């Protein structure tokens, strides 16, 4: 014994672990009578469940308590669903309640919960497969009792809000054993003959047994299979049926179903007049803009005096042709002058012209032009060409006047 000493915390934790690992305690239903029922400011509900010989501490947290569809009171017989665990601080075990229903409908409640779980897992409630509702339904099929307040409420609200929708009543029984097959038949029939583009099905308020047809699996599946979108409108505000979960839209009551089915003509009229105003404003603004643009364009000189623009262009054209003409004349003049200059220099270079100025050309006997006296020797024959005529001569004496030649001759 001594080697196994727990602290209080360790013991409570140990017991808590034991209880939490027990599958039977993790989801169970307990029947009992409520006592000492307290709602704390935190939103959590604390109470005790009793029977003749025993009591059990219970807590229902805010999230679960918000889903209660009735108001629990001390003394009431209830059925609680939840799990048992230990609250280590107090060393007390308690029932953590996730759902509570008044007893007496306990069996129906269980059936409801089971069906709901099953259909949910099958995906019948998935928001991804909800059909969109028509904005302005042409024909609305109302599947409900032909007598009673519900059908009258629906007709009245539809007529007030949106009289353009035709209303087709498909009367069915809405309670009793015959109700589910009749509702299913009407939904299928409406789809088969495409009699409407929207279905409202439901009934007025009543006891949970009265509403039971709308918790029927066959009805749920017919709504699910309907190609025409379905609004469920069952009972009073807090009643939530299986049909509500499967329907494309859940309405709290039949009147609410009619409200959700159609737009309000007054709103649509507002929208139309708003569209009208917007269109007019846009068009007026546009016309103003275009007018301004026009005014701007008209104020340009070309628009005010189109001849001026043509004249300006004509002047520019004249100036250009003038420039072209004078440019080509100047070119010609330059060429002419350069030709004359070339002729003159050609003339100046002519050897005849040089000879005519008194120069002569000396050639050796071999005919080569001699420009240096030192290239000749005394006695050598030379030929002298003059401007007019030529001489045959003999060299008498050589006179060198080039200083370089002279120094070569006289060392």
């Amino acid at each position, binding site marked *: 014994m001594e080697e196994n000493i727990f602290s209080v915390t360790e013991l409570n934790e140990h017991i808590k672990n034991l209880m939490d690992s027990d599958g039977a305690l993790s989801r169970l239903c307990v029947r009992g009578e409520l006592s000492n029922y307290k709602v704390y400011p935190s939103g959590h509900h604390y109470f005790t469940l009793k029977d003749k010989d025993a009591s059990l501490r219970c807590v229902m947290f805010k999230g679960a308590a918000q889903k209660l569809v009735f108001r629990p009171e001390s003394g009431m017989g209830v059925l609680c669903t939840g799990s048992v665990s230990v609250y280590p601080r107090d060393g007390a075990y308690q029932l953590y309640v996730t759902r509570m229903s008044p007893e007496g409908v306990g069996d129906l409640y269980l059936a409801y919960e089971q069906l709901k779980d099953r259909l949910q897992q099958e995906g019948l409630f998935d928001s991804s497969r909800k059909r969109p509702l028509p904005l302005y339904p042409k024909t609305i099929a109302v599947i409900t009792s032909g007598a009673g307040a519900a059908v009258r409420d629906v007709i009245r609200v539809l007529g007030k809000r949106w009289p*353009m929708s*035709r209303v087709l009543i498909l009367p069915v029984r809405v309670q009793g054993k015959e109700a589910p097959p009749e509702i299913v038949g009407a939904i299928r029939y409406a789809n088969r003959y495409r009699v409407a583009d929207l279905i409202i099905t439901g009934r007025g308020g009543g006891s949970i047994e009265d509403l039971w047809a709308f918790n029927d699996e066959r009805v749920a599946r017919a709504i699910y299979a309907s190609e025409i979108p379905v609004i469920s409108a069952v009972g009073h505000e807090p009643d939530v049926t299986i049909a509500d979960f499967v329907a494309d839209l859940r309405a709290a009551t039949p009147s609410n179903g009619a409200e959700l089915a159609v737009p309000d003509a007054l709103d649509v*009229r507002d929208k139309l007049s708003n569209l009208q105003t917007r269109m007019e404003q*846009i068009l007026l603004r546009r016309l103003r803009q275009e007018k301004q643009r026009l005014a701007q364009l008209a104020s340009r000189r070309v628009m005010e005096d189109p001849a001026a623009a043509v004249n300006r262009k004509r002047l520019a054209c004249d100036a250009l042709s003038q420039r072209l003409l004078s440019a080509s004349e100047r070119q010609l003049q330059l060429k002419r002058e350069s030709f004359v200059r070339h002729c003159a220099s050609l003339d100046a270079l002519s050897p005849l012209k040089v000879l005519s100025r008194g120069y002569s050309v000396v050639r050796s006997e071999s005919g080569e032009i001699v420009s240096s006296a030192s290239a000749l020797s005394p006695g050598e024959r030379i030929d002298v060409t003059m401007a007019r005529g030529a001489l045959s001569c003999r060299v008498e004496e050589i006179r060198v006047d080039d200083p370089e030649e002279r120094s070569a001759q006289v060392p």
Partner: protein
Amino acid sequence: MEEKKNFEESMNRLEYIVRSLERGEVPLEESLTLFKEGAALIADCEKQLDEAEQVVRRLRKTESGEPEELPFDAEDA
């Protein structure tokens, strides 16, 4: 006007027209045409609303299975 549009088609067309006008990308001439069409649609929708009178019928399955519409009397059941 060409083929008569139902209310939803008219509203959709109207929204489209107003959006096109608001974007201001259509030529002026076309804007005027769209405006006229829009105004006619609005007038037509308002007329439909003015003249609407609720029709309530009861649907009955005939012996052949075909649907048949009868007057609805709320006291039938």
